[in-house]
């Protein structure tokens, strides 16, 4: 069984260069696309930049969005480590969000960490389904996680939130109410007055560090990597490969679930009636551009978080914020085909580095 990560990442011998080149190229193509359709591309990119980095407010928004993307990106990256392609972070995220919104309503001490844990469990269980189906029923995880996404979206947003779990209809907010508001004690504390930056960002960075430590420095992490590199070989070496795959998918789902909890506990404070996140799908882009490592994923999450935050200001020049999706998709397209850059990279390396003796 070929290593999924090897198939995704090897052709560029230096993946961080490949990713940086792909990101740069995607921004250039977006710029050109804006210019040729008659927009003021310089002003557009100026707004994009100032919306992401221009002052405390924008920086807070960038960090806020990056923290969710770190978690969904890590979710996809951890699944890749055990050799699975988790397309299902979106479904796992909204289960986590729902669990956080439910637990967050309880009037108990320590409700905020409890809500985070509840979200991790809910997302983890949803991820575990795909892992279990893969190991025991041979169902390909790409198919099962796509199906599980849509099941989660319809069951939660089409049934549970507007139905059994809906807030009692109060006069002003019948249709957009969503669920009952969570306890004030469950809110993530804001860290920087005047911005929406909250505890979620340091928490996400801490989790990224923990994931790196787990994967790079522990026995269990080594076994996960071994299973991802070759399930049969790992099995022959005495590693219970099936169990490790299930564990990896459960952790993957839990990470996405915590990402959903950050959205609820940080900004929404209830499961809203209209909840279009896309963070789960963007997590795929983050993990791929980040090269599947924890540090790379965190870095890519900050770039895409800035893009998301800045894109809201594109409306000032009459461009829909979904322009960010275009740039992000281009980056993934370019990262997906490292062979595009291979000739260029080889030439650069030949020019800058002296030939290495064999």
């Amino acid at each position, binding site marked *: 069984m070929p290593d999924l990560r090897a*198939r*995704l990442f090897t*052709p560029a011998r230096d993946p961080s260069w490949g990713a940086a080149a792909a990101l740069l190229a995607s921004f250039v193509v977006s710029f050109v*696309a804006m210019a040729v*359709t*008659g*927009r003021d591309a310089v002003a557009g990119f100026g707004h994009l930049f100032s919306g992401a980095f221009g002052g405390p407010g924008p920086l807070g928004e960038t960090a806020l969005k990056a923290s969710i993307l770190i978690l969904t990106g890590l979710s996809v990256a951890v699944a890749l480590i055990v050799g699975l*392609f988790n*397309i299902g972070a979106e479904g796992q995220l909204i289960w986590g969000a729902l669990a956080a919104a439910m637990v967050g309503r309880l009037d108990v001490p320590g409700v905020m960490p409890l809500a985070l844990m509840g979200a991790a469990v809910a997302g983890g269980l949803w991820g575990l389904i795909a892992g279990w*189906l893969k190991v025991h*029923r*041979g*169902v*390909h995880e*790409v*198919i*099962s996680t*796509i*199906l*599980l*996404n*849509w*099941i989660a979206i*319809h*069951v*939660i*947003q*089409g*049934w*549970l939130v*507007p*139905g*059994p779990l809906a807030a009692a209809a109060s006069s002003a907010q019948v249709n957009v109410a969503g669920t009952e508001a969570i306890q004030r004690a469950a809110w993530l504390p804001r860290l920087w007055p005047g911005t929406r930056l909250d505890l979620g960002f340091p928490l996400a960075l801490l989790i990224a560090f923990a994931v790196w430590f787990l994967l790079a420095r522990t026995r269990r992490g080594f076994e996960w990597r071994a299973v991802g590199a070759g399930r049969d070989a790992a099995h022959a070496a005495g590693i219970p490969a099936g169990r490790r795959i299930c564990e990896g998918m459960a952790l993957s789902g839990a990470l996405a679930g915590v990402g959903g909890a950050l959205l609820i506990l940080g900004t929404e404070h209830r499961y809203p009636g209209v909840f279009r996140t896309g963070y789960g*799908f963007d997590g*795929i*882009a983050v993990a*791929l551009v980040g090269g599947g490592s924890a540090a790379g994923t965190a870095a890519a999450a900050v770039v895409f978080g800035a893009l998301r935050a800045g894109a809201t200001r594109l409306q000032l020049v*009459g*461009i*829909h914020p*979904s*322009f*960010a*999706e*275009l*740039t*992000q*998709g*281009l980056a*993934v*397209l370019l*990262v*997906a*085909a490292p*062979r*595009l850059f291979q000739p260029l990279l080889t030439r650069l390396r030949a020019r800058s580095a002296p030939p290495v003796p064999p």
Partner: protein
Amino acid sequence: MNLVLDFAAPLVFAALGGVLSERAGVVNIGLEGMMRFGAFGAAAGSIASGSPWIGLACGGLAGAAAAGVHALLSLRFRANQVVSGIALNLVAFGLVTYLLQSIFGSSGVSPPAPALPRDRFGHSALAYAALVVPVIFHLWLSGTPAGLRVRAVGEHPHAAATLGVRVLPLRAACVLGSGVLAGIGGATLSVGILGQFDARMPAGQGFMALAAVVFGKWTPLGAAGAAFFFAAADAVQRHLSLTLHAADLRLDGLFLALPYALTLVVLALGIGRTRAPAADGVPYDPEGRT
């Protein structure tokens, strides 16, 4: 009952596109994006030319153009086919929204587009085509030399290559054909049913078509049958929510989840031969041995 045919047509075309690509050995997660390009291209072409038929052709071409990117990346540059499809969906979402705003100055809907003529039952020709095309496709895939070659490159490309089949050009052609079909599926939504483009199109129908491909076990008739079954579930749901006040019970979400849940159950229980083509998703390396 009348609704089923209308609901099914976009799914049928897109699902057939999925079957064509995957039987040739190229995974196509990008159906959703191809449908989106098709829906928008058809509306734009129809508005620009005044003829819905030219619009339909534009829709097919737009789907093919999107598929061309998928083919180029996954075949020429051997990108991972799942990643390429995901990226295509992201690009389709962003680019089409951007074009909608650039060309028509709206982020919600396009201006009304000339729609295909309807018969007295309210169906356009596309709805009836959705009944006929799967049968033709089935006969072509199972009974002609070209169909045999497609199946061969999807099951064992190296064996096909030793018999003189040019694997990569044939796969590229199938991916492009898949884009045409998915584009027509998208066009069915815009110039076939609604008579304009809506920024939310195709609203997950590409993924439902993908589920139909799997539910239908990668066969044209199976996938089309699954598309009709899913469309029927959708029609029943709308009927119930209109008549039984099921909207109060909020059962519509459960009904919408049903096709996906059933597909998952069928896969989990391994009912029948639910096996993808052997070389589905495996990049073809002419120098490789397997």
